[in-house]
Structures are given as structure tokens and as C-alpha cells.
């Protein structure tokens, strides 16, 4: 077990989030059972007062969890490798953590997205005095509980598996998996040009759909927003793959190094943080756009506020995807300009 001060900081912040959300969950549960907005009875009024705190708690929980996640990312990428023998980046640290490490990141991501959606619901709901989305907020908070608590457990499990004397292979393992420059024997060679074409096509689709939502007047906004959310998700996966297979080499200035975590190292300018921040924004705002569009269709009084939120989500998706392409693609363009050839 390895208890670095930064990990203690992450754990304490996570604990604050969990306790905050636990108190919110109790109110959410009562609301799910006994919410009667039409009757101004004593119980209902009491419940309404408790419900007012939910958006605030969700917002603070989201902010704290985000801060803890950034801290955890710094720990995994730049602090813990010095304490895990053989680790040069987060790849080695996650190897030491085993499956708990991957579960930790997945569940944490899910919890963050769930809390982000709570925050989106709360922000739209503020535009109407009667808190029409209180039941939806309550449900969202209850949905956020399992990944939140499971990620806490995964965190403890992952830390418990870190051993200061057990060496790992780190990025070298990736070479064995990917077969290095030659590729895995028998695998179909997929060229950089193919990946780039796929990425550019997907980016064009995302930008076009987002622009339509932002500036157009589509008749079936939620369908279009849902399509944007799905396409944004697909685009994120594709972008991360292209980053690994094509762009990383230009950033590291080596023929091939398919390790995404090395992007977070200070020696590479920690470019991984803004690059993955852009990807996270595309994914999160895709879901926000869909959520806002659904709210706008189902709650007429909130249609304007929801439309505004969906529009701003579309704009952020466009900005983040372009920012990603610039941050990831610029080193490649510079390389081409300097040397006249592409790597590989």
C-alpha cells in the first residue's frame, strides 16, 4: 500500500463528495416516493424546502469530484511513477494497480458524468420558479450514487495494490501488445492516412450537427441532440485512438510510442491535460445537449432555457473538437513543415 500525501488529499476530497451526496440521496429518495407538487400540504412544503438544497449539493459535489480527479490524474501521471519501480508514466502505475486501476478510472468517469448531468438539470431548473425538474434531479442524484460509491471502493483497492518494491514493465508492455513499428504479425495494416480520414469525417459530422443545433431550427431537436451525443461519444473514442496511433509520435518526436499517459508527463509539457480536457468536454457537452433538448420538449415552461443550454452545449462541442484537432494536429503539421515528410 502506498499512501502519498496527494492520495490522502484525493481520498479526503472523495469522502467529502460521498458524504455530501449521501445527504442529498436521502432527500432524493423521499422525493421519489412522496412528491406531490399540486398539494401545498405540510409534508410537501417541507419536502420542497429540502429539495432546494439538491442542486447546490450536486454542484459542489461535481466541483469537488472534478478537483479530486485532476489531483488524481496528476498523482497517477507525475507523482506515483517515482514510487513504483519501473514505472515511467501512469501506464506503469495502472499496471501496478491491476484491474482496480481501470475500474477506478471508469467508475470515476461515470460518476463525474452523472454529477455533471445533475448540474445541467439544476441550472436549467433555476429558470423557472416552481422547480419543475425537482423529481428529475432526485432521480439523477440517485443514479449517481452507485458509480460514486463503487469508485470510492475501487480507489481504496487500487491504492492497496501499489507496492513500492514490485516492478512493472510500463510502456514497454505496450510495445509487446502493439507489435512495435512492425505491427502485430498477421494483423491488417491500418495506415495513418486511414485514421486521419476517419477522424476528419467524424469531426465534420460532429461540427455540422452541432452547428445545426446551434444556429438552425430543427423540428426534432431531441432526436438531433441525441444523435449529436452518440456521434460525440464515437468521435471521442476515435480521437483518442488517432491520438495514440498517429499524433503521439509527433508529440514525442519518435517514430512510434503508443502510450497516451506519457502525454501527461511534464517533460512533454503535460499536453495530455488540455487534450483530454477537450475530449472530456465534447463527451460531457454531448450528453448535456441531449439532456437539455429532452427537457425542452417535455417541459414547455423550460423550453427557452433548455434551448439556450443545448445551443451553448453545441457551441462548446464545436470549440472543444476544434481545439483538440489543433492541439493534437499542430505538432504533426510542424513536423511536416520542418522535415518535409510524415512519420511512418
Amino acid at each position, binding site marked *: 500500500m502506498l499512501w502519498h500525501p496527494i492520495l490522502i488529499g484525493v481520498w479526503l476530497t472523495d469522502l467529502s463528495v460521498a458524504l455530501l451526496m449521501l445527504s442529498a440521496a436521502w432527500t432524493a429518495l423521499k422525493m421519489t416516493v412522496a412528491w406531490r407538487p399540486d398539494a401545498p400540504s405540510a409534508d410537501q412544503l417541507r419536502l420542497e424546502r429540502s429539495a*432546494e*438544497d439538491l442542486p*447546490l449539493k450536486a454542484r459542489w459535489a461535481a466541483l469537488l469530484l472534478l478537483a479530486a480527479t485532476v489531483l488524481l490524474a496528476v498523482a497517477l501521471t507525475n507523482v506515483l511513477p517515482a514510487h513504483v519501480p519501473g514505472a*515511467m508514466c501512469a501506464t506503469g502505475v495502472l499496471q501496478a494497480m491491476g484491474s482496480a486501476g481501470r475500474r477506478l478510472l471508469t467508475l470515476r468517469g461515470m460518476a463525474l458524468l452523472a454529477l455533471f448531468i445533475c448540474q445541467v438539470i439544476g441550472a436549467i431548473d433555476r429558470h423557472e420558479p416552481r422547480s419543475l425538474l425537482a423529481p428529475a434531479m432526485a432521480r439523477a442524484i440517485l443514479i449517481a450514487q452507485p458509480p460514486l460509491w463503487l469508485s470510492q471502493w475501487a480507489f481504496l483497492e487500487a491504492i492497496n495494490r501499489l507496492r513500492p518494491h514490485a516492478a512493472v514493465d510500463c510502456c514497454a508492455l505496450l510495445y509487446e501488445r502493439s507489435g512495435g513499428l512492425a505491427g502485430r504479425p498477421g494483423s491488417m495494416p491500418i495506415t495513418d492516412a486511414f485514421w486521419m480520414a476517419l477522424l476528419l469525417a467524424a469531426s465534420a459530422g460532429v461540427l455540422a450537427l452541432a452547428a445545426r443545433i446551434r444556429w438552425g431550427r430543427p423540428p426534432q431537436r431531441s432526436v438531433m441532440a441525441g444523435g449529436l451525443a452518440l456521434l460525440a461519444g464515437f468521435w471521442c473514442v476515435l480521437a483518442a485512438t488517432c491520438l495514440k496511433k498517429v499524433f503521439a509520435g509527433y508529440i514525442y518526436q519518435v517514430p512510434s510510442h503508443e502510450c497516451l499517459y506519457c502525454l501527461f508527463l511534464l517533460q512533454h509539457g503535460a499536453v495530455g491535460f488540455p487534450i483530454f480536457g477537450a475530449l472530456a468536454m465534447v463527451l460531457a457537452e454531448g450528453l448535456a445537449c441531449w439532456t437539455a433538448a429532452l427537457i425542452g420538449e417535455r417541459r414547455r415552461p423550460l423550453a427557452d432555457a433548455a434551448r439556450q443550454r443545448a445551443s451553448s452545449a453545441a457551441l462548446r462541442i464545436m470549440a472543444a473538437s476544434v481545439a483538440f484537432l489543433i492541439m493534437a494536429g499542430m505538432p504533426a503539421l510542424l513536423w511536416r513543415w520542418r522535415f518535409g515528410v510524415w512519420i511512418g
Partner: protein
Amino acid sequence: MKAAARHLLWIWAGREVLRRPGESSLLLLCLLLLTLLMTTALMLTQAFSETADALITQAPAVVVRRVTAGGWQPLPAGPALAAAAAVRGVLNPRVRIWGNVSGPQGTLMVVAHDARSPVTDQHGVALHLVPGQAAVGAGVSGADARGGLALEGHESLHLEVVHRFPSETAASTYDLVLVTPADARRLLGLPEGFASDLVLDVFHEPEAEALLPELQGAFPWPVHLTTRRMVRGDYRSQLAKRGGIFVVSGLPALCGLLLILVATVKAVRNERATTGLIKALGWTSDDLLRLYLYKSLLIALPAIVGGIAGAYLLVFLPHNQWVADLFFGWPGPAPPLALSIQGVVWVAAQVAVLILAPFLTVTLWAALGSATADPQQLMQGGRFL
């Protein structure tokens, strides 16, 4: 509040601070002193760390010393060099002659001048030493009647001091006596063909750790290997052990911070009635939180800036004696400490996290309860005119 009138909140926050001048001044002074104390400790740690890193980076990647049951032993230079050169990845292996001897006022470090690595003085002129001559560091004193330096080692030698290293290099030359290899061998009792240790370089620093097992097996005798990473680790634990000042300054500082935070929470709670009143008069919860934030910033920011500036002066004021006296046991000024812009930013960030963030957090947290409650609940029990 209208967006165009948000600046009025700053003005009102200033008015609120001035409404209780005694309390505000005391709080500012406490925060300033707390910041001064913590920043001094953090800045010293960071400066020591950066200075040490700067020196360690210039040191060889790996140092090889022959060891026996009784301690370390000189190693035969030729076979050692051949063994090291045979390991793939080793660059520029070379032997060194150095050791400790007694000087007039304590132990000094004797190092043989390596002609392949010339030493220049502050004017860029290369030093040329002949047997019987020495170049000494700023801390070497105690010249005898003939104006020379008497050293007691395996043999006693009397050396003429031809050059004194400037005080700016004191971090690495304070107790250094640079002599010719012949004089060094006589002082240290090293026979010809033997050396104190062997050093080597590598292409990438992480390779040093990877080469350790191979180096261990390359030599025909037991050896102790030290890398830069190990030296840094040793240095940091030494600093931590010697870091009584950090505990001494840290504990009262922590208590002081807790006291300030508790007092802040109480002060905000005591203003519940006024908070309720201004809510009743039409202020929104956002306006109230901004007001509390601005009030805190008006007090905290000058305190923190003043504290950091004061700490910088305390640590880096030219000719300050206390750092050398406390940390090095030297009577003269401390060696110049290196602190980069990134180091200053890192220290400021730590101060922001340790002091500013908790202060703002507790203020806003205490205010949050007031901001979301009904005005009459807050006003009950309050005393007004």
C-alpha cells in the same frame, strides 16, 4: 444586482471591512504573519531543493565505490575502468581521488585536480596547480605563520593557498581543498594505480537505475553504487531530518490557521442577523456570497502578498546570516540559493492552497448556510437599532 453595478459590491465590501476596523486589521495581521511563517519555510525548502538539484544534475550519473566488511576501500583504477567500460550504456567512466583530512579548524575535503576537467577562476583563467599548492573554498581558514595551510592526513603537508573559490560557489566548495593528484595521494595514503572511486555517465538518467544490476556484476569485488536519484532521495530525507524548523513553524502555523478559521466562521455566524436583513431588503443569495467573498479577498490578498514578499526578503536578503547559521552552521553568509520563477509560483500555489483556499472556503461555507436560509430565520435573535 444589476451586472453594471457589480463594482458596487466591492465598494460595499470595503465599507463593511472598515465598519469594524479593529477586527479587520487584526485578521489581516494574523494572516500576514501566518503567511510569512509558512512561506519562509516553504521557500527555504524549495530553494534548498532547487539548489541541490542544480548541483546534483552536474554530478556523475553513477558513483562506484569498492566496499569491504570494514567499510570502503580504494579500487584499482585500471581494472575498474575496464570493467565499467565493458558495460553497455556506460559513458565516460573515470576515476577520482578524494577524501577527508584534518585541517586547522576541522575536517576538510581534499580533491585531486583532474587535468581533464580544468577548473577556471572567476575571470575564466584555468587554474594550474603544482605540488605544494592548493585552491581552497570560502570556509577553509586558519592559515599558519607562513601564510599556508597545514593538513593532517596519512601524511602531514603544508600547502600554499594560491586561489580561494568565490563565496558564490560555497555550496560545493565551502570546505574544499583542491590539490595535485600527487599531493592528494600523499594526504590520503592512496598508492599509485588506485583511486577513491569511479564515476560514469549515461545517456538518459533513468538508464542509470536500469544499469545497476549489470554494474554490480561487472566488478570483481563488492561495490556500492549510488545514482543521482539516490542522492536526491538521501538529500531530501536529510533535509526532512534537519527540518526541525518546519515542524517548529508548521505546528504553531497550523494552530494559528485553525484559530483564524474558527474565528472567521464565528464572525460570519454572528452576522447572521445582518445577512438576513439585507436578504429581506432584496439582495440575492449570489450577491451575499459575492459580498462575503469580496470582504475576505480584501483582507486575505494584501495579507498573503505581504507575507510572501516578506518571506522572500527574509530568505534572500543579501548577507543574511540566519540561514547559514541555522542550516549549515557557518558563521558567514549562506551560499546563494537558487529559486526559479516556477519555484516561486509553486510556493505561491502552496500558500494559496494552505492558507487562501481554506480561508475562503470556510468563509463561503459559513455564509452559504446564511445565504440559503429564509431572512426571518436569520434575523431572529439579532440585535438592531
